């Protein structure tokens, strides 16, 4: 029997706007009309303004309807949506949606297509080709391929993954670890979560390839506790991967052993810093470590450890299955491959945009984003999370790659792009950056621990119009101390949103007494 196949995302973002209600309503009405259907809870396509996005398989096409609320479902049945019938919320064949069709999805190629926990769907869409190829290569060859691809750490630091892997490969030890950083704490970023919820086998495959390459036998995915659905999905996926021999003693019948488990964070932002994450996995306070030694030499429990972000590991299966040259044919300069951008905040069409590096900021926020949700003009865009720079529409020609953003006083970070309309006050945002640092600082080094509190106080003085010129000078001096004197990126990068706000939005730091009481 061929039942009509209906897809409704099980992703937590889709569920947060009512996907479960839609499923309940479709099930109820189908039963009442005695129509047999199969409902697949796929991952999200990352097209969030259309969520919950209901898709129906019609021949080769997937006809989409969105955003659908529970109340809309009866109308869908009336419009014969199971046959792809027309309806005011119908968007046609989902893959032809220009927003998706223009993208170049590599790491995210399978996200949103199928049941994330179906191994047969995973293999049918190109899964496991990379792992099978890796098993025929030496560790050196895998590392060389990753190095050749130009893949850099997608967590934010942009360090070449292949160099890190080579260091661990060359390290002599009875035990080596892989740690996947899924502590995606940056506001405006959600790609790790969506990938884990929507295509967890890709992450598992990428980690298995890395384990084979460097000789690691133990892997840990450190996932933030704010992502309960992702943790549950990943645990389920690991169990299925073990059943299929992707993990465990003999990976796909080979002599390689790799075991993987999930550790949950506990609500600390700084635990996304790699050494604080190691401390946290060891069960301690998430206090950063001094480097050296590098984690690649002495990491988790003092053993050589590869630490990469979810997107870094998840890019590896494509690189190994299709070769380094295919991957590095995308991108610009030394930023090779694709970046998974995330559009959030006050944005009309927010979501996941994966494309080669080098797209301009304007194409992202105006082209894909379609402007603000409120309809007011865009005033500011923050790139790269809470420690990233604020840019204005004057910077819309900026090329989105590691080097260009650095040269412009910003950073790519984890690829989050947060849009603000004209209501935003950049002095308040700058103060928030300092307050955030004060709350989340691990407290180990003075510039971060004390500087953040002093910074927030100084910006408050500026906001209230006290000694503005002198306080601005003091603030810049403090920023310099924090940048140069902090132990890790938490204190070291907090000045970035502050200084960029002062430089790109000088008006918000002048004549404050007029606007505040």
């Amino acid at each position, binding site marked *: 029997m061929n039942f009509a196949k209906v897809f409704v995302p099980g992703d937590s*973002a889709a569920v947060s706007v009512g996907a479960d209600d839609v499923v309940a309503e479709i099930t109820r009405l189908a039963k009442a009309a005695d129509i047999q259907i199969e409902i697949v809870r796929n991952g999200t396509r990352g097209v969030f303004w259309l969520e919950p996005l209901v898709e129906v398989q019609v021949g080769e096409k997937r006809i989409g309807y969105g955003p659908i609320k529970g109340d809309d479902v009866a109308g869908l049945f009336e419009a014969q949506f199971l046959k792809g019938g027309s309806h005011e919320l119908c968007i046609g064949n989902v893959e032809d949606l220009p927003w998706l069709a223009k993208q170049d999805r590599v790491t995210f190629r399978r996200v949103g297509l199928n049941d994330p926990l179906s191994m047969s769907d995973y293999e049918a869409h190109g899964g496991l080709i990379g792992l099978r190829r890796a098993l025929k290569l030496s560790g050196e060859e895998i590392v060389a391929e990753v190095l050749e691809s130009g893949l850099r750490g997608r967590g934010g630091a942009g360090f070449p993954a292949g160099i890190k892997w080579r260091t661990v490969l060359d390290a002599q030890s009875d035990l080596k670890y892989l740690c996947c950083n899924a502590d995606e*704490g940056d506001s405006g*970023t959600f790609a790790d979560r969506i990938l884990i919820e929507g295509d967890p086998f890709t992450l598992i495959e990428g980690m298995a390839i890395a384990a084979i390459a460097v000789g690691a036998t133990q892997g840990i995915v450190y996932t933030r506790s704010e992502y309960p659905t992702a943790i549950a999905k990943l645990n389920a996926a690991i169990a299925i991967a073990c059943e299929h021999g992707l993990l465990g003693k003999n990976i796909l019948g080979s002599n390689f052993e790799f075991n993987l488990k999930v550790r949950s964070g506990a609500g600390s932002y700084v635990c996304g810093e790699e050494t604080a994450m190691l401390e946290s996995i060891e069960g301690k306070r998430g206090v950063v470590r001094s480097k050296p030694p590098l984690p690649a030499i002495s990491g988790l429990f003092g053993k050589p450890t590869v630490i990469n972000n979810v997107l870094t590991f998840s890019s590896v299966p494509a690189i190994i299955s299709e070769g380094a040259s295919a991957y590095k044919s995308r991108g610009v300069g030394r930023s090779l491959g694709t970046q998974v951008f995330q*559009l959030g905040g006050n944005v009309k069409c927010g979501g996941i945009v994966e494309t080669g590096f080098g797209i301009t900021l304007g194409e992202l926020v105006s082209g894909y984003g379609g402007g603000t949700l409120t309809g007011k003009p865009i005033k500011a865009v923050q790139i790269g999370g809470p420690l990233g720079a604020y840019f204005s529409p004057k910077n819309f020609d900026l090329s989105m790659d590691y080097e260009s953003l650095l040269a412009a006083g910003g950073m790519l970070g984890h690829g989050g792009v947060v849009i603000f309309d004209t209501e935003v006050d950049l002095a308040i945002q700058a103060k*928030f950056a300092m307050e955030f640092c004060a709350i989340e600082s691990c407290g180990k080094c003075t510039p971060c621990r004390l500087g953040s509190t002093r910074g927030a106080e100084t910006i408050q003085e500026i906001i209230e119009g006290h000694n503005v010129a002198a306080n601005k000078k003091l603030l810049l001096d403090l920023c310099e101390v924090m940048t140069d004197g902090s132990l890790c990126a938490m204190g070291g990068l907090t000045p970035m949103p502050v200084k960029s706000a002062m430089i790109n939005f000088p008006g918000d730091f002048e004549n404050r007494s007029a606007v505040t009481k």
Partner: protein
Amino acid sequence: MKYATWSKSAGLAVLEPFRDEPGPVLISLQALQREFGYIPAEAVAIVANFFNVSRADVHGVLTFYEDLSSSPPLPNEIHVCIAEACQAVGSRSLEKALKLAHGEQVRDVFCFGNCALGPAAMVNGVLIGRATPEKIAAAMK
């Protein structure tokens, strides 16, 4: 969320699976929190003895992490995101309204990864996108 009632023996039963876990303190405190909704003061010494670490180590971990609480849970756990992406769509005024209405049951969180559907909130473990005071009230007990 339904929590068990704390007792020393119930606490020890929760710790048992972590006996051979490397670096057990955080993961066992998380397990206690899940089981009882909080970590009672007397649990600190019990955890320290069980894993042969100092009470200072356990206290240090307990006080470092936002998720871990030393006081019993309130009727509702309302977490509202106040990070930048949600600020851009009015989370600060939502936060104010919620705190006014529901007091200490409301806690600030930095990011749920729902940044394209903000403001985001979580009520008793259920994530809510495009959150409003009405949606949140409807999800409360």
